[in-house]
Protein backbone atom coordinates (compact mmCIF):
# COMPACT_ATOMS: atom_id res chain seq x y z
CA UNK A 1 0.00 0.00 0.00
CA UNK A 2 1.29 3.43 -0.87
CA UNK A 3 1.65 6.06 1.86
CA UNK A 4 -0.79 8.51 0.32
CA UNK A 5 -3.39 5.74 0.31
CA UNK A 6 -3.19 5.44 4.10
CA UNK A 7 -3.50 9.21 4.51
CA UNK A 8 -6.62 9.14 2.42
CA UNK A 9 -8.01 6.27 4.52
CA UNK A 10 -7.34 8.13 7.75
CA UNK A 11 -9.11 11.18 6.43
CA UNK A 12 -12.10 9.06 5.50
CA UNK A 13 -12.18 7.54 8.98
CA UNK A 14 -12.22 11.02 10.49
CA UNK A 15 -15.06 11.92 8.21
CA UNK A 16 -17.14 8.87 9.17
CA UNK A 17 -19.72 9.56 11.80
CA UNK A 18 -18.65 8.85 15.35
CA UNK A 19 -21.81 6.82 15.77
CA UNK A 20 -20.79 4.32 13.13
CA UNK A 21 -17.31 3.79 14.50
CA UNK A 22 -18.50 3.40 18.07
CA UNK A 23 -21.22 1.05 16.84
CA UNK A 24 -18.53 -1.10 15.24
CA UNK A 25 -16.58 -1.16 18.50
CA UNK A 26 -19.62 -2.12 20.58
CA UNK A 27 -20.48 -4.90 18.15
CA UNK A 28 -16.92 -6.23 18.10
CA UNK A 29 -16.62 -6.04 21.86
CA UNK A 30 -19.82 -8.08 22.19
CA UNK A 31 -18.67 -10.68 19.68
CA UNK A 32 -15.22 -10.96 21.26
CA UNK A 33 -16.93 -11.44 24.60
CA UNK A 34 -18.92 -14.38 23.20
CA UNK A 35 -15.67 -15.85 21.84
CA UNK A 36 -13.71 -15.74 25.08
CA UNK A 37 -16.44 -15.87 27.76
CA UNK A 38 -16.69 -19.71 27.86
CA UNK A 39 -12.97 -19.92 28.54
CA UNK A 40 -13.12 -17.23 31.21
CA UNK A 41 -16.06 -18.96 32.92
CA UNK A 42 -14.05 -22.18 32.80
CA UNK A 43 -11.01 -20.59 34.44
CA UNK A 44 -13.21 -18.91 37.08
CA UNK A 45 -15.04 -22.15 37.88
CA UNK A 46 -11.72 -23.97 38.28
CA UNK A 47 -10.97 -21.73 41.30
CA UNK A 48 -14.45 -22.16 42.79
CA UNK A 49 -15.29 -24.17 45.88
CA UNK A 50 -18.33 -25.39 47.78
CA UNK A 51 -21.85 -25.28 46.35
CA UNK A 52 -20.89 -22.65 43.77
CA UNK A 53 -18.48 -25.16 42.22
CA UNK A 54 -21.14 -27.60 41.09
CA UNK A 55 -22.18 -25.60 38.03
CA UNK A 56 -20.29 -23.90 35.27
CA UNK A 57 -22.06 -20.58 35.49
CA UNK A 58 -21.51 -17.19 33.93
CA UNK A 59 -19.20 -15.60 36.45
CA UNK A 60 -16.21 -13.29 36.07
CA UNK A 61 -14.77 -13.89 39.52
CA UNK A 62 -14.95 -16.89 41.88
CA UNK A 63 -17.23 -16.45 44.95
CA UNK A 64 -14.95 -18.41 47.23
CA UNK A 65 -11.56 -18.72 45.53
CA UNK A 66 -9.45 -21.78 46.22
CA UNK A 67 -6.56 -23.71 44.72
CA UNK A 68 -8.01 -26.94 46.06
CA UNK A 69 -9.23 -28.12 42.63
CA UNK A 70 -5.71 -27.92 41.25
CA UNK A 71 -4.08 -29.75 44.13
CA UNK A 72 -6.84 -32.39 43.98
CA UNK A 73 -6.32 -32.80 40.26
CA UNK A 74 -2.60 -33.41 40.63
CA UNK A 75 -3.26 -35.80 43.49
CA UNK A 76 -6.06 -37.84 41.91
CA UNK A 77 -5.04 -37.98 38.26
CA UNK A 78 -1.94 -38.43 36.11
CA UNK A 79 -2.31 -34.86 34.91
CA UNK A 80 1.40 -34.05 35.08
CA UNK A 81 2.24 -37.19 33.14
CA UNK A 82 -0.35 -36.32 30.46
CA UNK A 83 1.10 -32.85 30.17
CA UNK A 84 4.59 -34.29 29.73
CA UNK A 85 3.28 -36.83 27.20
CA UNK A 86 1.57 -34.14 25.15
CA UNK A 87 4.70 -32.01 25.24
CA UNK A 88 7.01 -34.84 24.16
CA UNK A 89 4.71 -35.92 21.35
CA UNK A 90 4.11 -32.38 20.08
CA UNK A 91 7.73 -31.26 20.25
CA UNK A 92 9.36 -34.40 18.80
CA UNK A 93 6.63 -34.84 16.20
CA UNK A 94 6.82 -31.23 15.07
CA UNK A 95 10.60 -31.42 14.79
CA UNK A 96 10.42 -34.58 12.66
CA UNK A 97 7.69 -33.09 10.48
CA UNK A 98 9.91 -30.09 9.80
CA UNK A 99 12.74 -32.40 8.86
CA UNK A 100 10.73 -34.57 6.43
CA UNK A 101 8.79 -31.68 4.89
CA UNK A 102 11.85 -29.53 4.36
CA UNK A 103 13.85 -32.30 2.70
CA UNK A 104 10.95 -33.54 0.59
CA UNK A 105 9.83 -30.01 -0.30
CA UNK A 106 13.38 -29.19 -1.35
CA UNK A 107 13.56 -32.26 -3.55
CA UNK A 108 10.26 -31.51 -5.25
CA UNK A 109 11.16 -27.87 -5.78
CA UNK A 110 14.71 -28.29 -7.02
CA UNK A 111 15.69 -31.79 -8.11
CA UNK A 112 14.93 -33.85 -11.18
CA UNK A 113 14.13 -37.51 -11.08
CA UNK A 114 11.74 -39.91 -12.76
CA UNK A 115 8.14 -39.90 -11.53
CA UNK A 116 8.66 -36.61 -9.74
CA UNK A 117 5.29 -35.10 -10.52
CA UNK A 118 3.44 -38.38 -10.06
CA UNK A 119 4.92 -38.73 -6.59
CA UNK A 120 4.25 -35.12 -5.69
CA UNK A 121 0.62 -35.17 -6.72
CA UNK A 122 0.09 -38.50 -4.97
CA UNK A 123 1.17 -36.76 -1.77
CA UNK A 124 -1.16 -33.87 -2.37
CA UNK A 125 -4.04 -36.18 -3.24
CA UNK A 126 -3.52 -37.94 0.08
CA UNK A 127 -4.65 -34.70 1.74
CA UNK A 128 -8.16 -35.56 0.58
CA UNK A 129 -8.31 -38.91 2.33
CA UNK A 130 -9.82 -38.47 5.78
CA UNK A 131 -7.58 -39.90 8.49
CA UNK A 132 -10.46 -41.99 9.83
CA UNK A 133 -10.23 -44.17 6.73
CA UNK A 134 -6.73 -45.23 7.77
CA UNK A 135 -7.39 -45.41 11.49
CA UNK A 136 -8.43 -49.03 11.77
CA UNK A 137 -5.66 -50.52 9.59
CA UNK A 138 -3.18 -48.29 11.44
CA UNK A 139 -4.43 -49.72 14.70
CA UNK A 140 -3.75 -53.27 13.48
CA UNK A 141 -0.36 -52.29 12.09
CA UNK A 142 0.64 -50.81 15.45
CA UNK A 143 -0.72 -53.85 17.29
CA UNK A 144 1.34 -56.11 15.01
CA UNK A 145 4.49 -54.06 15.71
CA UNK A 146 3.61 -54.15 19.41
CA UNK A 147 3.65 -50.36 19.36
CA UNK A 148 0.24 -49.65 20.88
CA UNK A 149 0.54 -47.45 23.95
CA UNK A 150 3.97 -46.07 23.00
CA UNK A 151 5.36 -42.66 22.13
CA UNK A 152 6.33 -43.76 18.64
CA UNK A 153 2.71 -44.70 17.95
CA UNK A 154 1.51 -41.28 19.11
CA UNK A 155 4.13 -39.44 17.07
CA UNK A 156 4.21 -41.47 13.86
CA UNK A 157 1.27 -40.26 11.73
CA UNK A 158 2.11 -36.55 12.05
CA UNK A 159 5.74 -37.09 11.09
CA UNK A 160 5.02 -36.61 7.41
CA UNK A 161 2.77 -33.85 6.27
CA UNK A 162 1.46 -33.63 2.73
CA UNK A 163 0.48 -30.05 3.45
CA UNK A 164 4.01 -29.37 4.71
CA UNK A 165 5.62 -30.74 1.55
CA UNK A 166 3.25 -28.69 -0.58
CA UNK A 167 3.90 -25.56 1.46
CA UNK A 168 7.70 -25.83 1.35
CA UNK A 169 7.72 -26.60 -2.35
CA UNK A 170 5.51 -23.62 -3.15
CA UNK A 171 7.64 -21.42 -0.97
CA UNK A 172 10.96 -22.50 -2.51
CA UNK A 173 9.63 -22.01 -6.01
CA UNK A 174 9.31 -18.32 -5.22
CA UNK A 175 12.99 -18.12 -4.23
CA UNK A 176 15.63 -17.60 -6.93
CA UNK A 177 18.24 -20.30 -7.48
CA UNK A 178 21.22 -17.95 -7.36
CA UNK A 179 21.94 -18.71 -3.70
CA UNK A 180 22.42 -22.45 -4.22
CA UNK A 181 24.10 -22.09 -7.57
CA UNK A 182 26.82 -19.85 -6.19
CA UNK A 183 27.37 -22.19 -3.24
CA UNK A 184 27.59 -25.09 -5.68
CA UNK A 185 30.19 -23.22 -7.67
CA UNK A 186 32.11 -22.75 -4.42
CA UNK A 187 32.16 -26.53 -4.06
CA UNK A 188 29.44 -27.12 -1.44
CA UNK A 189 27.79 -30.55 -1.58
CA UNK A 190 24.02 -31.09 -1.55
CA UNK A 191 23.92 -31.84 2.17
CA UNK A 192 25.70 -28.60 2.97
CA UNK A 193 23.49 -26.66 0.59
CA UNK A 194 20.35 -28.03 2.25
CA UNK A 195 21.62 -27.38 5.76
CA UNK A 196 23.29 -23.98 5.37
CA UNK A 197 21.44 -22.39 2.47
CA UNK A 198 18.00 -23.90 1.96
CA UNK A 199 16.94 -24.37 5.60
CA UNK A 200 17.53 -20.73 6.58
CA UNK A 201 15.77 -19.60 3.41
CA UNK A 202 12.71 -21.67 4.32
CA UNK A 203 12.40 -19.90 7.69
CA UNK A 204 8.92 -18.36 7.38
CA UNK A 205 7.41 -21.45 5.78
CA UNK A 206 8.93 -23.67 8.47
CA UNK A 207 7.51 -21.42 11.18
CA UNK A 208 4.05 -21.81 9.68
CA UNK A 209 4.38 -25.54 9.41
CA UNK A 210 5.70 -25.85 12.96
CA UNK A 211 2.71 -23.89 14.20
CA UNK A 212 0.17 -26.04 12.42
CA UNK A 213 1.88 -29.28 13.32
CA UNK A 214 2.21 -28.32 16.99
CA UNK A 215 -1.47 -27.41 17.34
CA UNK A 216 -2.48 -30.60 15.56
CA UNK A 217 -0.43 -32.75 17.89
CA UNK A 218 -1.49 -30.84 20.99
CA UNK A 219 -5.20 -30.97 20.16
CA UNK A 220 -5.49 -34.36 18.45
CA UNK A 221 -8.08 -36.59 20.05
CA UNK A 222 -9.43 -39.61 18.13
CA UNK A 223 -6.07 -41.07 17.13
CA UNK A 224 -4.41 -40.98 20.59
CA UNK A 225 -7.68 -42.21 22.08
CA UNK A 226 -7.45 -45.30 19.90
CA UNK A 227 -3.72 -46.08 20.07
CA UNK A 228 -3.26 -45.66 23.82
CA UNK A 229 -5.04 -47.46 26.61
CA UNK A 230 -3.00 -47.08 29.78
CA UNK A 231 -3.44 -44.06 32.01
CA UNK A 232 0.30 -43.44 31.71
CA UNK A 233 0.33 -42.97 27.95
CA UNK A 234 -2.69 -40.70 27.54
CA UNK A 235 -2.20 -37.25 26.08
CA UNK A 236 -3.85 -34.24 27.76
CA UNK A 237 -7.13 -34.10 25.81
CA UNK A 238 -7.61 -37.87 25.96
CA UNK A 239 -6.72 -38.09 29.64
CA UNK A 240 -9.11 -35.28 30.55
CA UNK A 241 -11.97 -36.39 28.32
CA UNK A 242 -11.88 -39.99 29.53
CA UNK A 243 -11.54 -39.01 33.19
CA UNK A 244 -14.21 -40.75 35.24
CA UNK A 245 -15.90 -37.99 37.25
CA UNK A 246 -13.33 -37.34 39.96
CA UNK A 247 -14.22 -36.94 43.61
CA UNK A 248 -13.86 -33.19 43.30
CA UNK A 249 -16.40 -33.17 40.46
CA UNK A 250 -16.62 -30.61 37.67
CA UNK A 251 -14.20 -27.91 38.96
CA UNK A 252 -11.41 -30.45 39.21
CA UNK A 253 -11.80 -31.34 35.52
CA UNK A 254 -12.00 -27.65 34.68
CA UNK A 255 -8.70 -27.10 36.47
CA UNK A 256 -7.30 -29.65 34.02
CA UNK A 257 -8.83 -28.02 30.93
CA UNK A 258 -7.52 -24.64 32.10
CA UNK A 259 -3.99 -26.04 32.32
CA UNK A 260 -4.38 -27.73 28.92
CA UNK A 261 -5.25 -24.41 27.28
CA UNK A 262 -2.41 -22.38 28.80
CA UNK A 263 0.34 -23.31 26.27
CA UNK A 264 -1.77 -22.51 23.21
CA UNK A 265 -3.10 -19.32 24.78
CA UNK A 266 0.45 -18.12 25.40
CA UNK A 267 1.34 -18.85 21.78
CA UNK A 268 -1.82 -17.38 20.27
CA UNK A 269 -0.54 -14.07 18.79
CA UNK A 270 2.33 -15.96 17.22
CA UNK A 271 0.04 -18.75 16.05
CA UNK A 272 -2.34 -16.33 14.42
CA UNK A 273 0.42 -14.65 12.48
CA UNK A 274 2.06 -17.78 11.10
CA UNK A 275 -1.12 -19.75 10.58
CA UNK A 276 -2.68 -17.23 8.25
CA UNK A 277 0.66 -16.35 6.72
CA UNK A 278 1.08 -19.98 5.76
CA UNK A 279 -2.42 -20.46 4.47
CA UNK A 280 -2.02 -17.47 2.25
CA UNK A 281 1.32 -18.86 1.06
CA UNK A 282 0.10 -22.41 0.50
CA UNK A 283 -3.55 -22.10 -0.34
CA UNK A 284 -4.29 -18.81 -1.94
CA UNK A 285 -1.21 -18.41 -4.02
CA UNK A 286 -0.95 -22.11 -4.91
Amino acid at each position, binding site marked *: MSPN*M*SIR*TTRRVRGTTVAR*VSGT*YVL*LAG*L*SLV*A*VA*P*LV*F*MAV*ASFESGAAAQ*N*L*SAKWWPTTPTLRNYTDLFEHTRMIRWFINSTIVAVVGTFLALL*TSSTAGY*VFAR*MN*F*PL*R*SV*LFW*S*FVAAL*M*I*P*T*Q*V*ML*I*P*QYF*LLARLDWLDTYQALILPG*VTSAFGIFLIRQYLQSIPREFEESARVDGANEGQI*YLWIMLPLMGPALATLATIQFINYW*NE*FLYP*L*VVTNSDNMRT*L*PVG*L*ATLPTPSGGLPEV*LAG*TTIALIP*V*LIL*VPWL*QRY*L*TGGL*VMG*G*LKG
Partner: protein
Amino acid sequence: MADSGLNKRPTRHVPLSRRHKREVWLALAFLAPTLVVFFGFRNLPALGGLAMSLFDWPIIGTPKFVGTANFTALMNDPLFWAALKNTLTFTALTVPATVIIALALASIVNQRLPGMRIFRLALFIPFITSTAVVAIVWKGLYGSKGAVNQVFSTLHLPTADWLSNPDLALVSVAVMAIWKEVGFIMLILLAGLQTVPKEVVEAARIDRANSFQIYFRIVLPLILPIVLLVTILSTISSFQVFDATYVMTGGGPGYSTTTLVYYIYNSAFVGLRMGYAATIALALLVVILAVSLIQRRLLGGGEDES
Protein backbone atom coordinates in the same frame (compact mmCIF):
# COMPACT_ATOMS: atom_id res chain seq x y z
CA MET B 1 16.30 -39.78 -20.94
CA ALA B 2 14.16 -40.73 -17.99
CA ASP B 3 13.23 -37.21 -17.07
CA SER B 4 12.05 -36.04 -20.44
CA GLY B 5 8.57 -34.59 -20.28
CA LEU B 6 8.60 -34.52 -16.52
CA ASN B 7 10.70 -31.44 -16.04
CA LYS B 8 10.41 -28.30 -18.01
CA ARG B 9 13.51 -26.75 -16.57
CA PRO B 10 16.19 -25.62 -18.98
CA THR B 11 19.02 -28.14 -19.03
CA ARG B 12 22.20 -27.01 -17.37
CA HIS B 13 25.66 -26.92 -18.84
CA VAL B 14 27.02 -29.85 -16.80
CA PRO B 15 27.26 -33.19 -18.68
CA LEU B 16 23.81 -34.50 -18.04
CA SER B 17 23.81 -38.25 -17.57
CA ARG B 18 26.34 -38.43 -14.74
CA ARG B 19 25.08 -35.45 -12.94
CA HIS B 20 21.52 -36.56 -13.38
CA LYS B 21 22.16 -40.02 -11.99
CA ARG B 22 23.66 -38.48 -8.91
CA GLU B 23 20.69 -36.19 -8.53
CA VAL B 24 18.29 -39.13 -8.63
CA TRP B 25 20.14 -40.83 -5.80
CA LEU B 26 20.27 -37.62 -3.81
CA ALA B 27 16.58 -37.05 -4.31
CA LEU B 28 15.88 -40.58 -3.12
CA ALA B 29 18.03 -40.12 -0.05
CA PHE B 30 16.28 -36.86 0.84
CA LEU B 31 12.87 -38.38 0.23
CA ALA B 32 13.49 -41.69 1.98
CA PRO B 33 12.12 -40.87 5.46
CA THR B 34 9.02 -39.30 3.98
CA LEU B 35 8.42 -42.18 1.60
CA VAL B 36 8.78 -44.80 4.33
CA VAL B 37 6.34 -43.15 6.71
CA PHE B 38 3.96 -42.00 4.03
CA PHE B 39 3.64 -45.32 2.29
CA GLY B 40 4.04 -47.49 5.35
CA PHE B 41 1.75 -45.58 7.63
CA ARG B 42 -0.69 -43.79 5.33
CA ASN B 43 -1.02 -45.21 1.85
CA LEU B 44 -0.69 -48.83 2.91
CA PRO B 45 -3.30 -48.45 5.67
CA ALA B 46 -5.59 -46.63 3.25
CA LEU B 47 -5.40 -49.63 0.93
CA GLY B 48 -5.65 -51.88 3.96
CA GLY B 49 -8.93 -50.20 4.80
CA LEU B 50 -10.21 -51.07 1.36
CA ALA B 51 -9.17 -54.70 1.84
CA MET B 52 -10.55 -54.92 5.38
CA SER B 53 -13.99 -53.91 4.20
CA LEU B 54 -14.17 -57.25 2.38
CA PHE B 55 -13.64 -59.20 5.59
CA ASP B 56 -15.52 -60.08 8.71
CA TRP B 57 -12.67 -58.90 10.92
CA PRO B 58 -12.98 -59.29 14.67
CA ILE B 59 -10.45 -57.48 16.88
CA ILE B 60 -9.07 -60.84 18.07
CA GLY B 61 -9.20 -64.02 16.00
CA THR B 62 -8.95 -64.79 12.30
CA PRO B 63 -10.59 -62.59 9.71
CA LYS B 64 -13.00 -64.26 7.33
CA PHE B 65 -13.43 -63.18 3.71
CA VAL B 66 -17.04 -62.17 3.15
CA GLY B 67 -16.88 -60.38 -0.19
CA THR B 68 -19.34 -57.53 -0.40
CA ALA B 69 -21.41 -58.67 2.59
CA ASN B 70 -20.29 -55.64 4.65
CA PHE B 71 -21.53 -53.28 1.94
CA THR B 72 -24.90 -55.05 1.76
CA ALA B 73 -25.14 -54.90 5.54
CA LEU B 74 -24.26 -51.20 5.46
CA MET B 75 -27.00 -50.41 2.98
CA ASN B 76 -29.53 -52.17 5.21
CA ASP B 77 -28.25 -50.72 8.45
CA PRO B 78 -30.69 -48.12 9.82
CA LEU B 79 -27.98 -46.87 12.19
CA PHE B 80 -25.68 -46.07 9.27
CA TRP B 81 -28.40 -44.03 7.59
CA ALA B 82 -29.16 -42.30 10.87
CA ALA B 83 -25.46 -41.48 11.30
CA LEU B 84 -25.27 -40.21 7.73
CA LYS B 85 -28.37 -38.08 8.26
CA ASN B 86 -26.95 -36.68 11.52
CA THR B 87 -23.65 -35.88 9.82
CA LEU B 88 -25.39 -34.13 6.92
CA THR B 89 -27.64 -32.24 9.32
CA PHE B 90 -24.63 -31.21 11.37
CA THR B 91 -22.89 -30.00 8.21
CA ALA B 92 -25.96 -28.06 7.10
CA LEU B 93 -26.21 -26.50 10.56
CA THR B 94 -22.56 -25.52 10.82
CA VAL B 95 -21.02 -24.79 7.41
CA PRO B 96 -23.31 -22.08 5.96
CA ALA B 97 -23.59 -20.38 9.35
CA THR B 98 -19.83 -20.50 9.93
CA VAL B 99 -18.96 -19.13 6.49
CA ILE B 100 -21.59 -16.36 6.57
CA ILE B 101 -20.73 -15.25 10.12
CA ALA B 102 -17.01 -15.44 9.31
CA LEU B 103 -17.50 -13.34 6.19
CA ALA B 104 -19.39 -10.72 8.18
CA LEU B 105 -16.72 -10.73 10.89
CA ALA B 106 -13.90 -10.51 8.35
CA SER B 107 -15.56 -7.51 6.71
CA ILE B 108 -15.96 -5.81 10.08
CA VAL B 109 -12.40 -6.39 11.30
CA ASN B 110 -11.00 -5.44 7.88
CA GLN B 111 -11.78 -1.78 8.64
CA ARG B 112 -8.80 0.43 9.33
CA LEU B 113 -9.59 1.33 12.89
CA PRO B 114 -7.24 1.24 15.87
CA GLY B 115 -7.45 -1.89 18.01
CA MET B 116 -8.71 -4.26 15.31
CA ARG B 117 -5.78 -6.56 16.05
CA ILE B 118 -7.09 -7.23 19.55
CA PHE B 119 -10.55 -8.15 18.26
CA ARG B 120 -9.10 -10.46 15.60
CA LEU B 121 -7.06 -12.15 18.28
CA ALA B 122 -10.03 -12.58 20.64
CA LEU B 123 -12.21 -14.02 17.87
CA PHE B 124 -9.43 -16.39 16.83
CA ILE B 125 -8.78 -17.84 20.29
CA PRO B 126 -11.51 -20.54 20.26
CA PHE B 127 -10.03 -22.08 17.12
CA ILE B 128 -6.68 -23.02 18.62
CA THR B 129 -8.22 -24.81 21.59
CA SER B 130 -8.56 -28.58 21.56
CA THR B 131 -12.11 -29.58 20.62
CA ALA B 132 -12.15 -32.39 23.15
CA VAL B 133 -11.01 -30.02 25.89
CA VAL B 134 -13.46 -27.21 25.16
CA ALA B 135 -16.22 -29.78 24.70
CA ILE B 136 -15.78 -30.61 28.39
CA VAL B 137 -16.26 -26.92 29.13
CA TRP B 138 -19.32 -26.57 26.88
CA LYS B 139 -20.89 -29.63 28.44
CA GLY B 140 -20.70 -27.70 31.72
CA LEU B 141 -22.05 -24.51 30.11
CA TYR B 142 -25.01 -26.47 28.73
CA GLY B 143 -25.74 -28.06 32.14
CA SER B 144 -29.18 -27.54 33.69
CA LYS B 145 -27.79 -24.80 35.95
CA GLY B 146 -24.96 -23.83 33.61
CA ALA B 147 -24.12 -20.51 32.04
CA VAL B 148 -26.34 -20.95 28.96
CA ASN B 149 -29.51 -21.48 30.96
CA GLN B 150 -28.45 -18.76 33.35
CA VAL B 151 -28.14 -16.25 30.51
CA PHE B 152 -31.40 -17.47 28.94
CA SER B 153 -33.37 -17.04 32.14
CA THR B 154 -31.87 -13.59 32.72
CA LEU B 155 -33.15 -12.64 29.28
CA HIS B 156 -36.53 -14.25 30.09
CA LEU B 157 -36.05 -16.88 27.41
CA PRO B 158 -37.10 -20.51 27.98
CA THR B 159 -34.35 -22.70 29.43
CA ALA B 160 -33.75 -26.25 28.18
CA ASP B 161 -31.85 -29.49 28.66
CA TRP B 162 -29.55 -28.68 25.80
CA LEU B 163 -27.68 -31.96 25.56
CA SER B 164 -30.19 -34.46 26.92
CA ASN B 165 -33.07 -33.43 24.68
CA PRO B 166 -32.77 -35.49 21.47
CA ASP B 167 -34.25 -32.64 19.40
CA LEU B 168 -31.74 -30.12 20.70
CA ALA B 169 -28.54 -32.10 21.27
CA LEU B 170 -27.18 -31.95 17.70
CA VAL B 171 -28.01 -28.25 17.40
CA SER B 172 -26.26 -27.57 20.70
CA VAL B 173 -23.13 -29.36 19.52
CA ALA B 174 -23.33 -27.44 16.24
CA VAL B 175 -23.42 -24.11 18.10
CA MET B 176 -20.20 -25.05 19.86
CA ALA B 177 -18.63 -26.07 16.55
CA ILE B 178 -19.53 -22.71 14.98
CA TRP B 179 -18.13 -20.89 18.01
CA LYS B 180 -14.89 -22.81 17.60
CA GLU B 181 -14.39 -22.62 13.82
CA VAL B 182 -15.61 -19.16 12.92
CA GLY B 183 -12.47 -17.26 13.98
CA PHE B 184 -10.25 -19.36 11.74
CA ILE B 185 -12.46 -19.01 8.67
CA MET B 186 -12.65 -15.29 9.43
CA LEU B 187 -8.85 -15.01 9.28
CA ILE B 188 -8.59 -16.76 5.91
CA LEU B 189 -11.38 -14.61 4.46
CA LEU B 190 -9.69 -11.54 5.92
CA ALA B 191 -6.49 -12.46 4.09
CA GLY B 192 -8.64 -12.74 0.98
CA LEU B 193 -10.32 -9.38 1.53
CA GLN B 194 -6.92 -7.77 1.86
CA THR B 195 -5.95 -8.97 -1.61
CA VAL B 196 -8.80 -6.95 -3.15
CA PRO B 197 -7.04 -4.08 -4.91
CA LYS B 198 -7.87 -0.73 -3.33
CA GLU B 199 -7.91 0.92 -6.75
CA VAL B 200 -10.90 -1.13 -7.89
CA VAL B 201 -12.94 -0.14 -4.84
CA GLU B 202 -11.88 3.50 -5.17
CA ALA B 203 -12.82 3.54 -8.83
CA ALA B 204 -16.26 2.18 -8.05
CA ARG B 205 -16.71 4.79 -5.35
CA ILE B 206 -15.83 7.55 -7.80
CA ASP B 207 -18.46 6.07 -10.12
CA ARG B 208 -20.94 6.62 -7.27
CA ALA B 209 -21.45 3.00 -6.37
CA ASN B 210 -22.79 2.71 -2.80
CA SER B 211 -21.15 0.53 -0.14
CA PHE B 212 -23.75 -2.18 -0.63
CA GLN B 213 -23.08 -2.39 -4.37
CA ILE B 214 -19.33 -2.28 -3.85
CA TYR B 215 -19.51 -5.16 -1.39
CA PHE B 216 -21.84 -7.46 -3.29
CA ARG B 217 -20.90 -6.59 -6.87
CA ILE B 218 -17.15 -6.10 -6.55
CA VAL B 219 -15.59 -7.38 -3.34
CA LEU B 220 -17.56 -10.59 -2.99
CA PRO B 221 -17.06 -11.81 -6.58
CA LEU B 222 -13.34 -11.10 -6.23
CA ILE B 223 -12.96 -13.27 -3.15
CA LEU B 224 -15.35 -15.99 -4.31
CA PRO B 225 -12.53 -18.53 -4.91
CA ILE B 226 -11.48 -18.14 -1.27
CA VAL B 227 -15.07 -18.43 -0.08
CA LEU B 228 -15.25 -21.67 -2.05
CA LEU B 229 -12.01 -22.88 -0.51
CA VAL B 230 -13.15 -22.28 3.07
CA THR B 231 -16.55 -23.78 2.34
CA ILE B 232 -14.94 -26.99 1.14
CA LEU B 233 -12.44 -27.01 4.01
CA SER B 234 -15.09 -26.54 6.63
CA THR B 235 -17.43 -29.07 4.99
CA ILE B 236 -14.70 -31.71 5.06
CA SER B 237 -13.91 -31.01 8.69
CA SER B 238 -17.58 -31.03 9.70
CA PHE B 239 -18.00 -34.45 8.08
CA GLN B 240 -15.30 -35.69 10.42
CA VAL B 241 -16.95 -34.45 13.61
CA PHE B 242 -16.18 -36.80 16.46
CA ASP B 243 -14.43 -35.18 19.45
CA ALA B 244 -17.36 -32.93 20.35
CA THR B 245 -20.02 -35.63 20.24
CA TYR B 246 -17.80 -38.16 22.02
CA VAL B 247 -17.26 -35.80 24.94
CA MET B 248 -20.55 -33.91 25.10
CA THR B 249 -23.19 -36.50 24.26
CA GLY B 250 -21.59 -39.91 23.69
CA GLY B 251 -23.60 -40.11 20.47
CA GLY B 252 -26.88 -39.75 22.33
CA PRO B 253 -29.46 -39.22 23.61
CA GLY B 254 -30.61 -42.30 21.72
CA TYR B 255 -28.63 -42.02 18.52
CA SER B 256 -29.48 -38.37 17.94
CA THR B 257 -25.83 -37.24 17.78
CA THR B 258 -24.24 -40.42 16.42
CA THR B 259 -22.26 -39.11 13.46
CA LEU B 260 -20.41 -41.18 10.85
CA VAL B 261 -17.02 -41.01 12.55
CA TYR B 262 -18.62 -41.71 15.89
CA TYR B 263 -20.26 -44.77 14.35
CA ILE B 264 -16.90 -45.88 12.89
CA TYR B 265 -15.30 -45.58 16.32
CA ASN B 266 -18.18 -47.33 18.00
CA SER B 267 -18.31 -50.23 15.53
CA ALA B 268 -14.56 -50.75 15.72
CA PHE B 269 -13.67 -50.24 19.35
CA VAL B 270 -16.93 -50.87 21.17
CA GLY B 271 -18.66 -53.33 18.83
CA LEU B 272 -15.27 -54.79 17.81
CA ARG B 273 -16.38 -55.23 14.18
CA MET B 274 -13.26 -53.91 12.46
CA GLY B 275 -14.18 -54.93 8.90
CA TYR B 276 -17.56 -53.28 9.17
CA ALA B 277 -16.02 -50.14 10.65
CA ALA B 278 -13.59 -50.01 7.69
CA THR B 279 -16.62 -50.21 5.38
CA ILE B 280 -18.27 -47.22 7.08
CA ALA B 281 -14.98 -45.34 6.77
CA LEU B 282 -14.99 -45.97 3.01
CA ALA B 283 -18.55 -44.70 2.82
CA LEU B 284 -17.35 -41.56 4.60
CA LEU B 285 -14.60 -41.13 2.03
CA VAL B 286 -17.09 -41.47 -0.82
CA VAL B 287 -19.46 -38.96 0.78
CA ILE B 288 -16.67 -36.44 1.35
CA LEU B 289 -15.38 -36.74 -2.22
CA ALA B 290 -18.89 -36.48 -3.66
CA VAL B 291 -19.80 -33.42 -1.60
CA SER B 292 -16.54 -31.60 -2.41
CA LEU B 293 -17.11 -32.26 -6.10
CA ILE B 294 -20.69 -31.01 -5.97
CA GLN B 295 -19.64 -27.90 -4.05
CA ARG B 296 -16.91 -27.20 -6.57
CA ARG B 297 -19.49 -27.42 -9.34
CA LEU B 298 -22.08 -25.28 -7.62
CA LEU B 299 -19.85 -22.58 -6.22
CA GLY B 300 -17.00 -22.81 -8.68
CA GLY B 301 -18.71 -20.75 -11.39
CA GLY B 302 -16.96 -17.54 -10.41
CA GLU B 303 -13.55 -19.13 -10.25
CA ASP B 304 -12.59 -18.58 -13.88
CA GLU B 305 -13.69 -14.99 -13.96
CA SER B 306 -11.31 -13.75 -11.28
